[in-house]
């Protein structure tokens, strides 16, 4: 083996080794999963978020009443938790109650704005859920651009125009 070939092989090996031992950093998902926030905020917010996640799990299993009760518990612990309102909005969209969904969405947006927790990753859910709620009301012309915008930002989640409990969890 020529010297140049040995150098090239050594370089190749070192690149390979570096790749093997460096953790792969994927770009963050364009939409937020609430479980990512589990360790954030003060203990009250964390406990409240835990109950929201339990509620989403209940929603996933089709235990709708239980899910709603868990969101109420989450608000009992922290009545200003915007993610509880977000989960409630998703719950009501899934249940076909657009009025309540829109109320909760507005509340979630106000609190996210006020607490400066708004980010594009959570906003995509606000936009998509608003679109889904408006579609329920038959306001297709208003709904479609919102759903299209959500699908552009987070295609894996919003391509089908819905947000499953597991996708928010």
């Amino acid at each position, binding site marked *: 083996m020529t010297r140049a070939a040995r150098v090239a092989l050594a370089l190749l090996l070192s690149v390979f080794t570096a790749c093997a031992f460096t953790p792969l950093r994927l770009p963050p998902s364009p939409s937020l999963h609430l479980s990512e926030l*589990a360790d954030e905020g*003060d*203990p*009250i917010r*964390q*406990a409240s978020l*835990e*109950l929201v996640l*339990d509620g989403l799990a209940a929603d996933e299993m089709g235990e709708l*009443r*239980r899910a*709603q*009760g*868990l969101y*109420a*518990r989450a*608000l*009992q*612990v922290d*009545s*200003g938790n915007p993610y509880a309102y977000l989960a*409630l909005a998703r719950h009501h969209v899934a249940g076909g109650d657009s009025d*309540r969904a829109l*109320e*909760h969405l*507005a*509340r979630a947006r*106000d*609190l996210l*704005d*006020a*607490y400066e927790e708004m980010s594009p990753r959570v906003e995509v859910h606000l936009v998509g859920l608003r679109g889904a709620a408006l579609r329920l009301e038959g306001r297709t012309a208003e709904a479609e651009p919102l759903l299209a915008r959500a699908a552009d930002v987070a295609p894996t989640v919003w391509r089908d125009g819905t947000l499953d409990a597991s996708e928010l969890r």
Partner: protein
Amino acid sequence: MLTLAFLAGFGLAGVVADLDQVVRDRFDGTRFRVPSRVYSAPTILYPGLDWKLVDLRGALARLGYRESARTGSLPPGQYHWDARRVHVHLRAFEHPSRPEPARDVVLRLSGRNIASISALPSGRELGAVLLEPEPLGAYYGPAREQRELVALDEVPRHLIDAVLAVEDQRFESHPGIDLRRIAGAMLANLRAGSIRQGGSTLTQQLVKNFFLTPERTFRRKLHEAAMALIVEARYDKGEILEAYLNEIYLGQRGATAIHGFGEAAHLYFGKPAAQLTVAESGLLAAIIQSPNGISPYRDPERATRRRNLVLDLMYEQGRIDAVRHDQARDEPLRLASVTPDPGDARYFLDLLRRQMAESYAAEDLTQEGLRIYSTLDRRLQALAAKSLQEGIEAIERRIPALAKAPPERRLQGCLLAMRPQTGELLALVGGRDYRVSQFDRCTQARRQSGSVFKPFVFIAALEPAGGVPTITLASRLDDAPLAVETPSGLWRPRNYDGEFHDVVSVREALERSFNVATARLAQQVGVKRVADVARRLGIESPLPLVPSLALGTAEIAPIELARAYATIASGGVRPTLQAVEDLVDRDGHVVDRRRLEFERVLDPGTAYLATSLLEGVADHGTAAGIRAGGLRGPVGAKTGTTDEERDLWFVGFTPDLVAVVWIGFDEPRSLGVPSSVGALPIWRRFVEGATGGVVRGRFPKPPLVERVAINPMTGARALAGCPEQRDEYFLRGTLPDEICPSGGGESSEFLRWLRTRL
């Protein structure tokens, strides 16, 4: 003769048919009238929670948890507490939002906080666990019977064995009457020369309780025997036993009769019947004979002797082995502490009853065994009752003449608290003593609101209705004498201190509760708009459109004020008042769930400006006394004292809590003290207890509100070089045009201010 026999037989058949009908009507219909029960909201435990603040020990005691001196494995319903950790075996319970399995958990304590919660034996960290809701009360029918129904397969076998051993050992084999037992009883009674023993089977006891009177006549005994035979012929042993277990009288809780083993297990041992031990089952079976005479609370030694007799019978009849018998006999009598009287929640129960009357007949509430899961916070409720009671007594100590009135004319008050974001009612005390007066002053009384109405005037002026607000927080208001023509003559408002203050800032006007400046502002905005704001925020009482509306001459219920201030505290979103979360029928089905409802009625910017103004009142205005005990954190508040000090109000809120206090007489007359002396200390005591003296969180500033330095003397925007500066909040687009220091000349307001001081 044949005819006579035929007629007798025919008559007997008729009687039997009648009795059969009676039996079937009761057994096939609703067997038991079960009062509906009301429960508090569950206590949620989580890492970071202040366990002293939520009175964890008290909650465990009220729920019948028993403290164990030993460490190691604990059965459900017991806990061990040491300096650094609490090991508690939480009981399983059904709750519509989150049915909880029994959980063995360890709470690690760090000072006043729960540092972590872990499950045993896995050690898995838990984010939150729930304690079961606490019973608040029940809606009884005229008989005041309380029972919790149990199914036969829910009760432990040893409970059934204990009952059968002492009450009816041949229950499985007799046809409803037990001739051997009757003969034995007769013999024993003959020997004793008096009636010492009864020969009734369980079926006969059940028939007597269900259908007959307790009189001791031959005719009644005959009916009892006949009906017992009919019951046994029509229904199987399991059904009869289950009915007996739910029907039998087992003691008293105050005026309420306790029926059935489900309820008795809670009364005596603070646990469900399913969790009774052999010894506990023996005790309950022992007291059937005379629940009050052998009451373990009244005479524990006698109760223990009788319990041991039952255990001996169980052993002799082969129902338990020697080991279980000996263990049970050795078990000391451990009774649940007597559940505190939830009397302080009775105004709340009445409110629920009135609300439920819209959907449920009164009989449904007393008979259908609904479980009503309310929003009431048991700890805050007790705290509210105590704060109000002590506060009123303090006023009476200050003015002894007030204490001399007869009970029905004494000083009254009310306190209610709600969660602003969700509208959940957390505590409600409608008067100083429910036994004296059931009139709920929080929800049923309407009283002049005085200065607690003033924030609605300021909100109407700050709200950019039609694009531009009437004032900003930098504006200056005129507090010079005012006279307004009204149909009843000239109206001339005066300040509480009897002075006029020329020109004052918006903050000063509200912080010092100046009547004249507020009345002038209302004139500027228009009384109609003020009333419109009050309505939107949640006031439902009639609001006469007169100039004095601005100063709170309208009569309003405290609960309306709570909702209106909650709307301010939650950033302009009006919550729907919620007192019930879930309604569950006797089969455990959720029949109604109240949903969280709210509506935006005020833009978040204006709501924030109003909150900021009211924070000023709490920090350095008429409500500043709330800080006297060291209360820290964000609070907005307003005092209110009506003419001649007839009504004292205090409304205050934190980001998570709104509380209203009203003090006065049912027939209005002067108290002789202002709100800051009478109502404020009650609010302070309550909120200090509720928060532990530190209010968490903050009122979030919406993005469309800007914080800008101004010159407080002129309201001009302050730049570098301006001699006096203070930060103030503005809706975007409403910043002052004037600049300080100005390039040429001062504003006319500043000159006017200067003139007043030269």
